[in-house]
C-alpha cells in the first residue's frame, strides 16, 4: 500500500502554492445564501415577536440587514484568513491563544465588576456588549486561538516524533485545554461551546497520531468530566431529563418546549415544506427561531428534501476540508485543517442532532446559517484559513487519490486535481 509518500512528508516546503479549492467558497456561499433567505423570511416575524414581548422597536428587516452585515463581515474575515500567510498564524499562535484567554478573563473581570460591557443571562456572562457594534463572544476567539496554537504545538511535536509523550506533549495540551474549558464551561457555563472546543482538541489529537490507547483515556476522562458538569448544573440536568423523557413529556413544560416545537416545525414540513416565508413556528412557537433553531425552521419551510440538501451541503463542505487536510504535507497545516473540521463538524452535528431530538439541546449555532455575529465570523475565518491551505496541497500520488474514493470525491482515480478540473 505504501508505494509512495514518506519522502514527501518530510519536505513540506516542496509544496509550492497553487490554485486553491474554490469549491469551498461555493459551498460556503450557498449555505450563507440559504441562511440569509431563511432569516429574510422569518426576520419580520421575529422582530414582531420581540416587539410585542419586550416592547422593542425592531423594524421588520432589522434581522435580515444585520445578518447581511454579519455575512459581509464574515466574508471579510474569510478573505483575511485566506490572504494572511498561514506562517503568520503559526508564528503568532501563542499570541492568539493568549488573546483568547485574555478576552475571556476580561469578560470575567467585567462580570465580577458588574460592568455593562458584560452581557449576561441567567447569571452566565458569555458576551461583550459593544453597544451599536453588537456583541462579541470571546469564547469564539479562544476556540480559534486554541486551534491555531495546538496545530503549531502538536505539529512541532509530531515532527520531532514526541507526539505520545505524556509529560512534554499531552500534559501541556491538557493544561491549556483545561484552562480554556474552565473559562467556557465553568465561568461562562456554556456547555455547547465547551463540547465543541473539546471536539476540536480531540479531532486534532486523533489526526496528530496520538495512540488509540491514549485517546481512549482522554475520551474516558472527558466523559467523566462531562457527566460531572451535567450533574453539577440543574438546568443541564433538566435538559438531559427532558431529552430522556422525549415526546412523552408535555409540550408545555418549559425545557421540553423548544425541543418539541423544533420537531413540530420539522414534522409539519413534510416532503417539500410550507415554502419560503410560510414558517408558522417562527412566529413565536419555536424559541431561538433565527439562531439555534434555524435548522428546524428550514425544515418547516423547505421540507425533508430541503434540509436533507442542507445536510448534504454541510457534509460536502466537511469532506472538502477533510480532503484538503489529507493532501497537506505539513503536519501543522494538516492539524489546522483537522481543527477546523472538528470545529465546523461539532457545530453542525451538535446543532442538528439537538434539533432532531437525538441529543439534548446544547445551545450551539448552526455554522453559516444561524443568525449571529461572532460565531459566524470566526468559523468563516477558520474555513478561510482552510481555503488558503487548499493552495498548498499535494496531489502527486495515485495512492492519495485512492483514499478519497470514500470521501465523496467525484474525481476519478489517478488524475490530479488540475487534470480533473480542466477536463470537467
Amino acid at each position, binding site marked *: 500500500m505504501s508505494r509512495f509518500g514518506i519522502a514527501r512528508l518530510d519536505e513540506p516546503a516542496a509544496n509550492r502554492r497553487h490554485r486553491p479549492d474554490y469549491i469551498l467558497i461555493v459551498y460556503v456561499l450557498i449555505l450563507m445564501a440559504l441562511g440569509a433567505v431563511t432569516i429574510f423570511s422569518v426576520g419580520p416575524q421575529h422582530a414582531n*415577536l420581540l416587539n410585542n414581548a419586550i416592547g422593542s422597536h425592531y423594524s421588520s428587516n432589522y434581522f435580515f440587514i444585520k445578518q447581511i452585515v454579519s455575512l459581509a463581515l464574515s466574508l471579510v474575515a474569510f478573505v483575511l484568513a485566506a490572504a494572511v500567510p498561514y506562517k503568520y498564524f503559526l508564528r503568532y499562535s501563542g499570541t492568539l491563544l493568549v488573546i483568547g484567554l485574555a478576552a475571556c478573563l476580561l469578560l470575567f473581570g467585567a462580570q465580577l465588576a458588574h460592568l455593562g460591557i458584560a452581557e449576561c443571562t441567567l447569571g452566565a456572562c458569555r458576551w461583550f456588549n459593544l453597544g451599536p457594534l453588537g456583541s462579541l463572544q470571546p469564547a469564539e476567539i479562544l476556540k480559534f486561538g486554541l486551534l491555531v496554537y495546538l496545530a503549531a504545538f502538536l505539529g512541532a511535536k509530531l515532527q520531532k516524533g514526541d507526539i505520545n509523550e505524556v509529560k512534554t506533549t499531552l500534559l501541556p495540551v491538557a493544561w491549556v485545554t483545561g484552562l480554556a474549558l474552565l473559562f467556557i464551561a465553568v465561568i461562562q457555563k456554556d456547555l455547547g461551546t465547551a463540547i465543541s472546543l473539546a471536539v476540536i482538541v480531540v479531532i486534532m489529537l486523533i489526526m496528530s497520531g496520538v495512540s488509540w490507547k491514549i485517546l481512549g483515556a482522554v475520551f474516558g476522562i472527558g466523559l467523566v468530566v462531562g457527566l460531572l458538569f451535567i450533574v453539577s448544573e440543574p438546568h443541564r440536568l433538566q435538559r438531559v431529563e427532558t431529552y430522556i423523557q422525549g415526546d412523552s413529556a408535555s409540550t408545555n413544560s418549559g425545557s421540553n418546549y423548544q425541543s418539541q416545537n423544533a420537531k413540530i416545525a*420539522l414534522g409539519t414540513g413534510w416532503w417539500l415544506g410550507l415554502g419560503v416565508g410560510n414558517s*408558522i413556528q417562527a412566529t413565536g412557537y419555536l424559541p431561538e427561531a433565527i439562531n439555534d433553531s434555524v435548522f428546524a425552521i428550514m425544515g418547516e419551510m423547505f421540507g425533508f428534501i430541503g434540509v436533507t440538501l442542507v445536510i448534504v451541503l454541510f457534509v460536502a463542505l466537511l469532506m472538502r476540508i477533510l480532503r484538503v487536510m489529507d493532501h497537506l504535507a505539513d503536519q501543522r497545516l494538516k492539524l489546522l485543517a483537522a481543527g477546523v473540521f472538528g470545529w465546523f463538524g461539532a457545530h453542525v452535528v451538535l446543532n442538528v442532532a439537538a434539533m432532531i431530538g437525538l441529543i439534548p439541546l446544547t445551545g450551539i449555532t448552526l455554522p453559516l446559517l444561524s443568525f449571529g455575529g461572532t460565531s459566524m465570523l470566526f468559523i468563516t475565518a477558520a474555513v478561510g484559513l482552510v481555503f488558503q491551505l487548499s493552495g498548498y496541497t499535494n496531489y502527486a500520488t495515485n495512492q492519495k487519490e485512492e483514499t478519497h474514493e470514500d470521501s465523496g470525491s467525484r474525481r476519478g482515480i489517478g488524475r490530479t486535481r488540475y487534470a480533473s478540473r480542466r477536463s470537467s
Partner: protein
Amino acid sequence: MKLELIKGSRSRILAGCLMAVAVLFAVRLFYIQIIQHDYYQQLADSEQIKRLTIPAQRGMIYALSGSQPVPLVMNETVYTLFADPATVTDVQGIIKTVESVAGGNARPNLDKLLTTPNSRYQILATKLTTAQAEAIKKKGLEGIGFQQGSQRVYPEGGLAAQTLGFVDANGDGQYGIEGGLDAELKGKNGLLQSVTDIASVPLTIGSRNVKQPAVNGKNVVLSIDRNIQSYTEGALSRQLTKIGAPDGSVIVMNPQNGQVLAMANWPTYDPSTFNTVTNPSYFNNSVISSPYEPGSDIKTFTMATGIDTGAVTPDSTYNNTGVVNIDGIDIHNAPGDTQFGNITFQTAMNWSLNTGFVTVAERLGDGQNITLKARQTMYDYFYNRFKLGQLTGIQLAGELPGIIIPPSSPDGNAVRYSNMAFGQGLDVTMLQVASAFSSLVNGGKYYKPTVVAGSVDEYGDYHPAAPETPTTYIKPSTANQVRDMTHVARTTVFVGADRPGYYMGGKTGTSQAIVNGRYSNTDTVATYLGYGGTKNETKYVIMVRVSGPHFMGSGAAAAMPIFTDISNWLVRYLNIPPQ
C-alpha cells in the same frame, strides 16, 4: 511517523463517522418529517390554530308608537382599556390620562395595577365610550390596548322593564323578551378559525383558515305601544301611591288580534342598572309569571259556559238565599248582599253573587248537583276553550302555567268546582284571563296572546308579523251576551265613570291572597277585568291587579279606578269616535 497517518486511515475514520452521522440524520429526518408528519401536524394544529369568535350584534328591541317602531333597547360599543405592565414605559402618563378621560370608569389604584410584577394583562378601565377610547388612543401611550365590547342602552329608561328583561354579563338575555327570544336576538356568532402567531394574531399562511361571518340578531318590534305603556305605568303608580298598595300589575291588550299593548308592573327597576337590584322579584313580570286565585273575574267565564251550553241565559232566574250547600259545605255570598229572592243571573253578575254562579255550575249538571258531567263541561270550557291554567306561549321568559284541577283528579270534586265557578280553587295568570276575556268581548274568537308585532330588517324597514289566526271556541252570541252583561254590571255599579259615547264593561274581583298555602286574612288580591270601545267593536281589554303584603282592598275601590283612568285616556289616544 506512523504509517496510518500517511495513508490517511484516521481521516477515513473521520470521514466514515461523518457519513454515518449524516445518514443517521437523514433517516431521523425522514422519520420525523415523513413518517411522523401526521402526528406532528396534529400537534402543530392544536398549538397554532386558534378559534376566534366574531361576535354577532344583538338585535335591537323596538316598541310601537302608533304604527311606527321606536327603539327601546339599542347597542352601544364600549371599550375595556387594558395594559401590559411589562411593556408600559410611562406609568404616570397613563395614570394621568386614564383618570382624566375615563373618570369613574377607571379602576382605583392604577399605580399598583401598572406596576404589577410578572403580569402581562391588567384592566385599567371598563365601559369606555368610543370618544373616551379615541381620546386615550390619541395620547400614543405605550403598553396599553383596547378590547371592544357591546352593551345595551335604553333610550326610554325603565319603560316596560319587565317586558324587556336585560342582558347579563355573559351576554345572555334574562327575563322578558331578552330571555324569551334570546336565541333570535343573539344571532349566530361567526367563527374565525385561523393559524395564528403565539400572541393569537391571525396569519394568512396555509389553507387551514376558516371564516364564517356572524349573523346578527333579529331586531324585534314589540306590540307594546310606548305611549300606552307609559300612560299605563303612570296610572298604576299614581293609584298605588294614592292608596298605599305595595304591588300591582296592568295589562292592556288589543282583543282583535291578541297583541299586548302594555304591561306594567310595580315596583319596577331600570334595566341599565339591573345589577344594582337587590330584590330579584322586581325582574318578574307578574302579568305572566305570578299565577293567583283570580276571584270573581272568573264569573264571566262561568256565565259564558252556562250560556254557550244552553244551561242558562242572562235573564234566567234562581232563588238567591245567600247560601248554597254543596256536598255539606255552605257557600256564602260576600257580605253586603241585598238581592234575595228570585233574581236573574244578570243581577247576580252585577252584584257578584257567588250563589248565582254555583247555580250555573249546578245547571251544567242535573240542576241540583255539580255532577261529573258539569265538572267536565266546566273543565272543557275553562281549560280547553279559555286556555286557563296553561302556558299561553307568549314570547317572554318566565311564563308560568298556573293550574286547573281536572275532574278526573280526586281533588276535582264538586266542592272545588263550586269554588271555581266564582274564581277560587284555581291558579291562573293575568295574561290568561285577559286573553280569554278578549275572546268574550270580540265575538268569540280566541287569539293566542303575543307581544311581538314584527321585525325591523337590516335596512331599518319595519315588517309587521303575519296576523294571528283566531280559533272560535264559543258561539258569537254567547260572547256578545257576556259582553253585554259585563257592560250592564259596570254601568249599574259605577255610574258615570266612563266617557259618554263609548261602550265599556267589566268585572271586579276581590279575593283573599293565599300566603303559605292558606287564605290570608290580611292580604287581598284586588282585580278589575274590563274592556272598552264602541258598541260595535271592542278596542281594548284592560286587566288590573292590586295586591301585596298587608294590603286590604277591593277590586272596585283599588283596581277599578286604574281601569277607568287608562280607559278614558285610551279612547282619546286611539281616536275612537264616540257613538
